[in-house]
Structure formats: structure tokens, C-alpha cells
């Protein structure tokens, strides 16, 4: 299986462990990733706050690059990238005027037939059975809280993926590793998102609620599929601890990292050592190497 | 008898000249299906060994469909408009004796009381250049119907290949003579005696029956049980009649040209169709296929002969070759002949 790969900015920076772990896991799962050449910004955050046309044209350019590489599917591991790519494609195909403008900007016809998918969709395509057959380390002793955040499944009419209000697809994939998933209440609550820089107070408060509910429901680890979620939930735990001294830390892993552990990769290979919150206890629980 | 000689090359030039003089040249097509018009002398493709086409050239003198008049339905009555008669001058090039004869035979029925101008105009505008025939198969029986591969009966001119690149051409009718007059420079003088020698060498199909015997037997054995078996497998299609060079039955139907105007069409019909004799009342005097098949044989070998002293058959074998269920008219005639001979 060959799939196009759009890393986006996070996966080359704050979220590079996501990139590391994902590439390793996918190669074990016989998925070849083909990075699109000369990709540019997906238009998230600044572009779509300032210039609508730009925020559509940027992903459109990336989609056309994928098209030219004859990629049927394009994986956008970052939930924000995924959202921009799939959202722009939807918008362009439903708005002829916009399409004309975008084509003017791109200086070419927009005719993308590439399907944009997120990491959960890719793993669904790979199949639970395949993952199950490759598990080397059973995660049956750990309880996982799957955190979807806001962008992975929304807007539902565009993503046409899972139930926006009560998603369960990540749980389903994780069950292949043997890990238990907990029923909890904050899987789609806001983590504070892009306020991370400007309004630390909001992010700390919102993230704390999420972390608390996960712990309250017995989770050992929170699994995410978005670098922004990860950065808020992982990096802000120290700030939380300052404000709420009783806060007990809980590790936050990328979905690819958790699966990587199950497939027998060690912590370093997966970049788990790069997190703010130590996951050593978690790895010990399943007798995996750091 | 007047006879000329012409080389293959000159024959092509002859064709070229004819086209220039606004003649329509009609030849056997290369697929062996039917006769077709050619527009270029390069397409001239004649040979005495060609198998007869599936359909004869009948359709050029007796159209498979043609309008006989037009009508306009108005609120205050019906207006009739005559159909245009085609003045196209046609040359049937390289016709086998069994085809060449067809115009003469049909002419009798189209002229015995009502003069059919549609047929006559076309027949008058036709020149038949017949050709000696060297094709034989088990379906050929021209000799049994008083024709032969060397018969020029029905032809206006008659071609005889003398070798691969040379032909003798015999002028058979006055019409033929007039027709060839302007082109005589292409021809050399020929000697009828040499061609007679050629005729003698031609292998003739065996004569299978005496048509006169058939005629008289049918007259006395209308109810004979032989017909029951002979026609029972006939499926009632019109192929035999439609490919036949001399079957001439037609149907008249009206069809629209537009709103409240139309044309009356004359279309081929066939006695093997069950609708052929179906009355408006629902009664059908020939209500089964064996009766229809008997009619076909009887018309060809008795009724037409009685009325016009002409057998309605040239022995070309087309109907037998094409019959979906393999009914062989020559074979049937032979069987009838032997029934007659044995006085059964």
C-alpha cells in the first residue's frame, strides 16, 4: 500500500516525534509513504484567520501536488492539516466562484481526485487484523483515554468520518493492541487550541479538565492524533502543577506511539523521550524498553 | 450476329466513358451480397467465375420500396401528388444469364393489362451486359428451366472472356447496338465462330427435371400429400422471394411524411408470409405454411407458365442457397419430376 504523506509544519517541529513514530509504524505495517514534493503551509491558524482565499488556495496547491504525483490517498497526520485539506477540497467543489478564484491563484485547473485521510482512517484501511497480527508487546494492562479534540472528526458533513459528538473510531483501532480504552467524558472537549501562546491561563484550565476526567475514569495514558492537542496536554502539565499542586501527571502519547510500543519499538525510536511528561512508568507497565 | 472484341484495359475505359456519359454502373459487390453502384471504373470487378450474389439486381428495376404517389390531407379534402419517375440510365455490368433474363420475365406481369410505369421506366432505362457463367454449385439448375450459362437471352450485350485480359462482346439487341455505338472506338471486330467454340467447351449443369412435366403434374395433383412434407419445415420468411430475380409481388402501404401528409409505398411482399393472403375479415385462404409453399412452386412452374408462357424461375439457386432451413427448390422440382415419372 502506497499513501501520500503531507507532514505539515508541526511534524517537522514540535511534533517531530509524531513524524518519527508514524513513519516507523507505517513501515512495519507495510504502508509506504510518499511525501509530496515542495509542499507548503496547509493554511491553518494564520491564513484562515486572515485571508479566506489564501486559506483555501494553500491546501489546494498541496492537493494539486499530490494529484501530480498520482497519489490516490493523502495522509495528513496533523488534525489541523487534515481539516484544512479536506475542508478546502469540499469548499472548492461546492463553490464554482471560489474554484475560479483558486484556479486563478494557482494558475492551473483544480481537479483533485486525491482522497485526504487522517491517521485513524489510514489505520482503518490497514485493518485491525493486520495490526493485531504484528503485535509483539501486549498492552492489555494499560488503560487508554482516546482524545479526539476538535478537528479530527469535524465538520462531520465534510469529513464524513465517525460521529462528531461521540466518536469511537480510535478506540476501535487501539483495541487491536490489546489495550483497554476507558469510557470518559472529555474526548471532544476543547483543549484551548491555538490560545496556547496568547492565553496560557485558558489552555491550562481547559487542559486540566481533560486530564482530570481521563484520570478520574482510570486512564493511564491519553492518546491523541493532533500535534496541537499533544502540545497543550503534554507541555502544559507543569504549568498546571504550579497552579494546582495536587495535579498528578499523566503521559500523553500520539496514536502512532502507542501502536509503536505494541509493535515492539522502543521509546527512543518512537521519540517518547522527547515528551515533557515522562512515560517511563507506562513503558514499564508493559515491559517495553525506553 | 455482331460481335466485337475488347481488352480488359479498354473495358475499364469503356466503363469510365459510361460514367462520364451519366450512366449508372451496377455490379456485383465484392462481398457477394448484392449489386451496387460504382462511381469509379477502378471498382470494375467482373468475372465469369463469381458466385451469384445473395440478392439479384432486381431491386434496381423493381425497388424494395418506392413511393407511388404522395397525398396531402387538408381540411377541405385530399390533394394527390404524383411521384417522380427516375430517369437514371442504368447498366448492369457482367450479369449472369440467370439474372439477365429476369427483366424480360417480370416485364410480362408488369404489362399484361396495367402498364406499370415504375417498372417500365426503369427497365427501359436499363442496359443489361450479360456474361458467360462458369460458376457451378449444387444449387444451380438453369438448364432445367430452359436457360444455360451461355445464354444471352435477356442481355442487351453479352460478354465472353476469351482469355484473362480479353473479352468478346456480342451485340444481342438493337437497344444494345445503339448503346454501344458512341463507344465503338474502344472495340475491335470479333468473330462469332470463335466464341461459339468457347461456348461448346463450357460445362453445363446437369438437367434435373423437365419443367413441362412439373407443370402438368401440379395441374393434376393440387391436393397431393407430397406438398405437406415438402413445405412443413418452411418458417415463412420472405428470403426466397426477396433474393429471387423474378419474384415480383408487392404490397401497398401508406406512411406519413409529416403531419397530415403522406405517401403510398410499394413494398416487396412474399407469398410465404402468412399475412400475404390474410383477409380483412380474418380469414386466410392459405392458412398454413404447406399451402403457401405449394403456392410458391405452383406459381413458378405452372400459373406463370400458363398465363405468360414463361417459367417464373431462372435456376439461379439463390433461394436454396439462402433458405434458413435448407429447402432446395431444384431438389423439390426433381422429386416432383420423379413423382410424375412414377405416376405416384
Amino acid at each position, binding site marked *: 500500500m502506497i499513501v501520500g504523506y503531507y507532514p505539515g509544519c508541526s511534524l517537522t517541529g514540535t511534533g517531530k516525534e509524531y513524524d518519527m513514530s508514524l513513519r516507523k509504524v507505517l513501515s512495519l505495517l507495510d504502508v509506504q509513504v510518499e511525501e509530496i514534493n515542495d509542499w507548503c503551509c496547509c493554511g491553518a491558524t494564520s491564513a484562515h484567520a486572515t485571508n479566506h482565499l489564501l486559506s483555501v488556495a494553500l491546501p489546494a496547491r498541496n492537493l494539486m501536488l499530490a494529484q501530480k504525483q498520482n497519489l490516490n490517498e493523502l495522509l495528513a497526520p496533523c488534525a489541523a492539516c487534515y481539516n484544512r485539506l479536506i475542508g478546502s477540497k469540499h469548499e472548492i467543489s461546492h463553490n464554482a466562484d471560489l474554484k475560479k478564484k483558486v484556479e486563478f491563484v494557482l494558475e492551473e485547473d483544480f481537479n483533485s481526485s486525491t482522497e485526504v485521510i487522517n491517521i485513524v482512517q489510514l489505520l482503518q484501511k490497514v485493518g485491525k487484523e493486520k495490526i493485531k497480527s504484528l503485535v509483539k508487546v501486549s498492552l492489555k494492562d494499560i488503560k487508554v483515554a482516546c482524545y479526539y479534540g476538535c478537528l479530527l472528526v469535524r465538520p*462531520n458533513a465534510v469529513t464524513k468520518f465517525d*460521529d*462528531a*459528538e*461521540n466518536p*469511537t473510531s480510535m478506540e476501535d483501532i487501539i483495541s487491536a493492541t490489546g489495550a483497554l480504552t476507558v*469510557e*470518559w*467524558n472529555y474526548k471532544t*472537549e476543547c483543549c484551548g487550541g491555538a490560545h496556547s501562546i496568547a492565553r496560557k491561563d485558558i489552555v491550562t484550565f481547559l487542559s486540566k479538565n481533560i486530564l482530570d476526567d481521563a484520570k*478520574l475514569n482510570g486512564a493511564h495514558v491519553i492518546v491523541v492524533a493532533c500535534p496541537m492537542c499533544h502540545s497543550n496536554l503534554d507541555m502544559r502539565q507543569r504549568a498546571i502543577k504550579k497552579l494546582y499542586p495536587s495535579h498528578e501527571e499523566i503521559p500523553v502519547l500520539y496514536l502512532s506511539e502507542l501502536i509503536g510500543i505494541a509493535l515492539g519499538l522502543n521509546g527512543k525510536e518512537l521519540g517518547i523521550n522527547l515528551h515533557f511528561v515522562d512515560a517511563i512508568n507506562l513503558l514499564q507497565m508493559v515491559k517495553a524498553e525506553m | 450476329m455482331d460481335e466485337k472484341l475488347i481488352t480488359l484495359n479498354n473495358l475499364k475505359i469503356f466503363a469510365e466513358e459510361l460514367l462520364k456519359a451519366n450512366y449508372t454502373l451496377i455490379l456485383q459487390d465484392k462481398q457477394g451480397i448484392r449489386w451496387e453502384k460504382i462511381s469509379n471504373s477502378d471498382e470494375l470487378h467482373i468475372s465469369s467465375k463469381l458466385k451469384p450474389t445473395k440478392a439479384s439486381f432486381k431491386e434496381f428495376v423493381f425497388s424494395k420500396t418506392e413511393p407511388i404517389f404522395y397525398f396531402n*390531407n*387538408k*381540411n377541405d379534402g385530399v390533394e394527390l401528388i404524383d411521384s417522380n419517375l427516375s430517369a437514371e440510365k442504368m447498366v448492369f455490368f457482367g450479369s449472369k444469364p440467370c439474372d439477365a433474363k429476369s427483366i424480360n420475365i417480370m416485364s410480362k406481369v408488369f404489362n399484361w393489362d396495367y402498364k406499370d410505369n415504375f417498372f417500365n421506366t426503369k427497365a427501359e432505362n436499363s442496359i443489361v451486359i450479360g456474361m458467360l457463367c462458369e460458376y457451378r454449385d449444387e444449387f444451380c439448375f438453369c438448364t432445367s428451366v430452359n436457360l444455360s450459362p451461355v445464354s444471352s437471352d435477356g442481355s442487351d450485350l453479352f460478354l465472353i472472356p476469351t482469355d484473362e485480359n480479353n473479352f468478346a462482346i456480342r451485340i444481342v439487341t438493337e437497344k444494345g447496338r445503339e448503346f454501344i455505338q458512341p463507344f465503338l472506338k474502344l472495340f475491335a471486330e470479333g468473330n462469332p465462330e470463335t466464341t461459339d467454340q468457347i461456348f461448346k467447351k463450357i460445362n453445363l449443369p446437369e438437367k434435373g427435371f423437365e419443367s413441362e412435366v412439373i407443370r402438368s403434374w401440379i395441374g393434376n395433383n393440387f391436393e397431393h400429400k407430397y406438398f405437406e412434407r415438402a413445405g412443413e419445415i418452411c418458417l415463412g420468411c420472405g428470403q426466397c422471394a426477396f433474393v429471387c430475380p423474378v419474384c415480383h409481388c408487392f404490397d401497398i402501404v401508406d406512411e*406519413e*411524411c*409529416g*403531419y*397530415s401528409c403522406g405517401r403510398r409505398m410499394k413494398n416487396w411482399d412474399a407469398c410465404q408470409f402468412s399475412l400475404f393472403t390474410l383477409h380483412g375479415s*380474418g380469414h386466410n385462404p392459405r392458412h398454413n405454411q404447406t399451402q403457401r409453399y405449394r403456392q410458391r412452386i405452383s406459381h413458378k412452374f405452372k400459373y406463370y407458365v400458363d398465363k405468360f408462357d414463361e417459367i417464373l424461375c431462372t435456376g439461379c439457386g439463390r433461394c436454396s442457397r439462402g433458405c434458413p432451413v435448407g429447402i432446395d427448390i431444384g431438389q423439390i422440382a426433381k422429386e416432383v419430376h420423379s413423382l410424375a415419372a412414377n405416376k405416384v
Partner: protein
Amino acid sequence: MKIGVFVCHCGENIGKTVDCATVAQRAAKIPGVAYSVDNKYMCSDPGQNVIKNAIREKKLDAVVVASCSPHMHEKTFRKAAADAGINKYLCEIANVREQCSWVHDNIPDATDKALDLVRIAVEKVKRNIPLTAIRVPVTKRALVIGGGISGIQAALDIANSGFEVVLVEKEPSIGGHMSQLSETFPTLDCSQCILTPRMVEVYQHPKIKLLTYSEVEKVEGFIGNFTVTIKKKARSIDEEKCTGCGLCIQKCPIKKKAFNEFEEGLATRPAIYVPFPQAVPNIPVIDRSVCTYYQTGKCQMCLKVCGREAILFEQQDTLVTEEVGSIVIATGYKLYSIDKKPEDSEIKGYGEYGYGKYKDVIDGLQFERIASASGPTNGEILRPSDKTQPKKIVFIQCVGSRDEQKGFSYCSKICCMYTAKHAMLYKHKVHDGEAYVFYMDIRAGGKMYEEFVRRAIEEDGVKYIRGRVSKIYRQNGKYIVKGEDTIAGMPVVIDADMVVLATAMVAQPNASKLAQTIGVPYDKYGFYQEVHPKLRPVEVSTAGVFLAGACQSPKDIPESVAMASAAAAKSLVLFGSDYLEREPTVAVVNEANCAGCFYCLKVCPYNAIEKKEVKNKLGEIIDYIAHVNAGLCQGCGTCNATCPSKSIELIGFNDEQIYAEINAFSESFV
């Protein structure tokens, strides 16, 4: 044939884009047209008189009226023609208003088109033949499907007019959802108190044949003449012998096992049971899926205690055939099942509300049972999980309804009212309790409805919050309801003890199956489709079948009852005459040409084609050919198009007529 053409100006409606005078002049030249004239208002009395006089004076054989759509005035003009002495089927309409003058603005084009339309109609009418309406006798007996309040009302109305009714109910008792309700809005009178006398009346009515625990299997025939096959499911009880003493129910050893449908799962019942104490008929039924005897072959306790030997373990389902003239469908609704996704995966559930996961998150009908004096808590408001009194209760409206994401864009209409009622009942019983209602809009259109909601807010202090709830989860024994107050523009979190979801009213799960059995169209939600939303709201396209209640769309009780009476009235209209007149546009077989391939039989939607024997002079069957039962044929013509030899033709739309219509185009095209 002398044809008259009458071109209507319809005031300015036609006249302003179609040059009517020119159309009339040019129409006069069409072969067969003997008279042609235009008029300002053809449908007016003077206009009709123009037609009538022309028919009489010009001795016309047929007429074409170029006017509005045939759906509008075909009847009018056909009657006018008939009044003047020609067969009404020799009148055709050319639709030059709806399909010409109103949709085009270029006068020459519209005039040309109008003339074409006239010519088409002239050519058709030339080939029309005089027809007489088909008369079929009417069976003056009705079938009512569904024994809820709508079915009960319809049955009583018809029966009280003196006609027999067969009432079929699939449950063991009639009563429907109304029997589950505690009180009814806006009067708060006891639901069962007003319903049960009606149920008893049905039971005792000499003209009503009640078939409970029965389902309609097959419907054949047509208006006035339906033959209905009904399956009586085996109760395992001899209905003749049973006195309803209830001893068997008391003695049944598996009291606590079976899911109690009537109590919406809030209580259990024995294997042998009557759904509720006031059930009609008061005859128990054995639930074979839980009965020890059926499962293991042992027990027979009920048989032992029954003094009347009324228990029949070997009883089988039986089929009953009934002849009826009309059918009233009153099959009602179901509540949207929110705990799991319905089979049709387009529709998503409300996993975030935790219904099914949390025992104290319940739906409206469950709350009815909790509030009902005859319910599992005897009318005390106790939450299902621990039987404690909830002090804070949240009601959420529009769960499923008005939510395209979940597949239902429509408003369920009654939830605003019953939620107000629930909140009010709660406040009346738990004086120190708090009641919150999340709503999208309050739709309280109805007599005393708005006042009722105001009362809940103003007198009973129910707190209404305009907004949606995003999530319900459990924390420290409370149900955390997270929502948004869109008026205050703030998120709201309520730690409730219990949550009541006003879930959407949806069509019965097997509504489409019944629809196909009877031949009733249904919409994408499974609600039955009326013929016309305004003018024919209780009729369906299958003549003789009428709708009552929530099977057509969400409705409250007074609307359902009104509709039931309307459906009854429609049946009575039918029963008012001994014969029905039907359009004579039915198919006929040309027997001489039919080859008997019976493709017509295969495509006929009405089973109107029969195999007819062809016999020789000795009386031996030599062949079979098609024959049309004119009583069943509805004139769709599918047989005609399917027949390869065109040996079956639809009168009124036969091949010759259609051919002539197509041919009528050619002049304009040549």
C-alpha cells in the same frame, strides 16, 4: 368527424402571451376542425355556453378546449360537453396556460406552441371513443389497522353509523401509546380515564370485530372490494373460554424475567400476562420466548391453575380473510431509539447523551410511566437507578427531531407540550425540585397550549434554557449536563439527578412493509404519504385507503382524533352509494393477437391481468391468453408498453392516440 376548438384567454393569463385569436384561426385549418373560436373566460357560465351551443348548433362530435391544465378544469369542460349531448370522453384539454403562457414570454413562440398543443389535442380527440364509467359494487365494511386512539375513534365513528368494522391491533390489547400516558396536556386530565371507556365501547360494540394480537398479511382488490388476509398470532389462550380472572398471571413462576413493553422496560412482567390492568380484551397472552414450558417443556403452572382449561399450548397462528370496502390505517408512531444506531446507518445516535448507558437518562414515554399513578412507582417521581427522588431534573427537547445530522429534519410537534407537562407534573409532585428544560424554540400552537407552557414557567417555576446540550456524563453520582444558554451566551453545566430526553416521533419500524402490502406511498422518513397536503390530507393515492393519526406525521391526541373522524367520514362517503364509478381508462386485450407470454401479468402493479383459457370447438383448452380484470386495473399502461406485439392497449391512452399525438408535432418540425 367534426371537432370544435375553444381557445380560452383566461382573462389576461393566457391572452397576454398567447395570441388566442390567431390560435383559433389557425386551428380552424387543422383537418377535422369544423369550428374554432376564442373566448375571454371559457370556464365561466357564458364560456361554457359557447361550447354547449357550438356542440348543438354545429353538430360537433368532439371538442378541444385550449385552457388551463386538465388537472384544473378537465372535469368542468367534460361536464359541459356531456350536458350538450356528447360523450364526456370526447373532450380533450390543451394546456396552454400552465405549460405555455405562464412559462414563456415571447408571444410568437408561445403562440406557435399553443397551436401545437391544440393540434396534439385535436389529433388525440379524433381517436377518442365514447366511454362509460365502470360501475363496481361497494362492500360496506371497513378495516381499521391499529387500535390506538386514532384507530379506536375511526372504528367507533364508522360502527356508530351502522357499518361493520374490523379493527386489527398487533399488540395483545388496544389502547396504543395513549394508554401509557399519565396525564394529557393542556388540561392535565388522566389519559386512561378518558381512553378506557372508549376501549370498552369498542369491545362491546356489535358492529366492531376486534382482532388483537393480529397483523395484516396481504391486501388484494381495490376500492370498495378489498380482500384482506389477517394473521392472528397465537396467544396460547382459548379466547372463548378465558374469563380474564388473572390467576394464571399471579401464579406464573417467572415474574421478574420478562421485559415489560408497556412499562417501557421500567418494570418486568410474567411470561403469561396482560399488558396492563385495563387491557381490552382482558385476555392474557403467553410470551413464548420467556415461558418455561416453551423453553424447557416443563412447568404448565398456568394450565394447572386455570379452572376453564383455557390455556392452549399448541395453538397456532391462524389466517383470517375479511372482505372490506375501505381501509383506515392508524398504525401510529414509535419513539426514536437513541441508544443505538438504527439499522439504516445514515442515522446517527446520540451516544453523547448516554441513553442506555445511564439508567437515569430516560425518554418521554418512560417518564410518562414514572409519573403515572398506575406505573411502576405508583406515580411517585423516583429515578430508575436507585429509586430515590430526583431533586434536579433536566429535560432536553428536540432529541432527534429537527436535527439533520441524526436523519430527521422534521419537528415532532408534541415534545414542547409534553415536556412542559412533564416539568409541571414533576414540580407538582416534588415541590422542592428544580426542573430545567433545554429547548430550541417553543412551538405551542394550539388551543390553550401557549398558556400551558407559560404556566409551567411562571406558576411552576420551570427553568427554560434556550440551547442545546453537548454532553451528559456521570460524575460523583450526578449527571453533568453540559449545554449552552444561547440567550445568555454562556455555557451551562447542570449537575442533575435525572435527565429526560424528548426524543423524536418516528414512523413504525415496519411501516414500509405495510405500505407495500397495501400499496401506500410513504415519505423518506417512513410516514405515509397523503395525496394532497392541504386538500386531501387523509387520502392516499390508492383509492379507498385513508390515514388517521401519527402514521402520517407527528400529531397530538386531538389532531389524531380529528383525523380519525375524517378518515371515518371518507369511508362513510364511500359507503353512501351502492356502486362506485371508476374511470374507464383501463387496459383491454386484443385476444386475436395475444401470444400469451404474460409479461403484462408480470409488470402489472395491481394483479389485474388474469390467464384466460382458450378452448377449441371440443371444449379442450388449447391456449392461454391475457385478460384484464377491469375492476382491478388502474390504467397505468405499463402492460401496454411492455407487450411486444401491442396486443394489450390502454383505453384513453392507446397506441393509436399517442402515435397521433407524436405525429402532430411533425408539421411544426418540417
